[in-house]
């Protein structure tokens, strides 16, 4: 192509070039906001499904909370992937390992807090 590619693929010394395949940016552009509409419809469907499960007692109580949580994580992934343009970056997507660490710490705080409190007394 033209000389434009050469500017960015050549090492800049700023850590701007992609070194790790997984952290390579993905950029999505479209002439119609189809992704946004898909994301909206899916998030509405997931929310109403979770609400319906509780309102109409479609599941036994034991598995209900697990299913609701799974639906919540799917919806969070949708928001991140579609609305927050998770894979977009200038060069290497360095925010991905930062977010992964935050998720690891966050789940650790919640999970181990519940776990440790199960020993002495019941956490419902």
């Amino acid at each position, binding site marked *: 192509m033209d000389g434009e590619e050469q500017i960015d693929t050549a090492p800049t010394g700023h850590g701007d070039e992609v070194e790790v395949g997984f952290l390579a940016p993905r950029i999505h552009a479209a002439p119609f*906001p189809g992704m946004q509409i898909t994301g909206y419809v899916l998030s509405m469907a997931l*929310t109403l499904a979770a609400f319906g*499960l509780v309102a109409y007692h479609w599941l036994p109580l034991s598995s209900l*909370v697990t299913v609701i949580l799974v639906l919540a994580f799917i919806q969070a992934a949708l928001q991140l992937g579609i609305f*927050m343009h998770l894979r977009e970056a200038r060069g290497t997507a360095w925010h991905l390992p930062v977010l992964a660490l935050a998720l690891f710490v966050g789940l650790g705080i919640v999970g181990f807090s519940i776990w440790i409190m199960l020993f002495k007394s019941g956490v419902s």
Partner: protein
Amino acid sequence: MSTTTADRPPEFQDMHESIRIMGFWIFLSTDVGLFSSLFAVYAVFRSRVALGPTPHQLFAMGPVLTETLILLTSSFTCSLSLYSARMNRLRGAVAWLIVTLLLGASFVTLEIREFVADVTAGHGWSHSAFLSGFFTLVGTHGSHVTIGIVWAVMLALQLAMKGLTVTNRRKLYTFALYWHFLDIVWIFLFSVVYLSGMA
């Protein structure tokens, strides 16, 4: 896969603005820590109701579902604002941003109404560990949304005055990140606090 200047989104064209977006992701990561701590507190104290209302008695399904649908819709309109900006449609970007902040304001109004009703019924946050955890967790999210509304008002003014400048495009991008992040937090609030409480 290498990125070229041509297919790079406008917010990432400038090196310094890209670094600011990265900085905002780091801020959001620290906010994940804040909210997970509050979620942990809520999970641990959920059953400590001190003869007061249980989650099942306190929550009403209708208003909470309305709040959730409002916030989901505002997340969608926020994404349309950024989409319009990328299509170089300034008026569309400002209009969708205003719709977003109005939906956010109605969300906060409903939430405050719910809180006032709880407190006037004698279920204030000093009544039990459950209520302390509940008001702190949901209130922290609500104050985040309120700050987001103030931010959106200032951003709409800046867009109206200066147009889609390099700086304004980045500001809209980081605002969208913030707003969608709050939507994710609310999804977990809705699932863990309200739906699990009503189950």
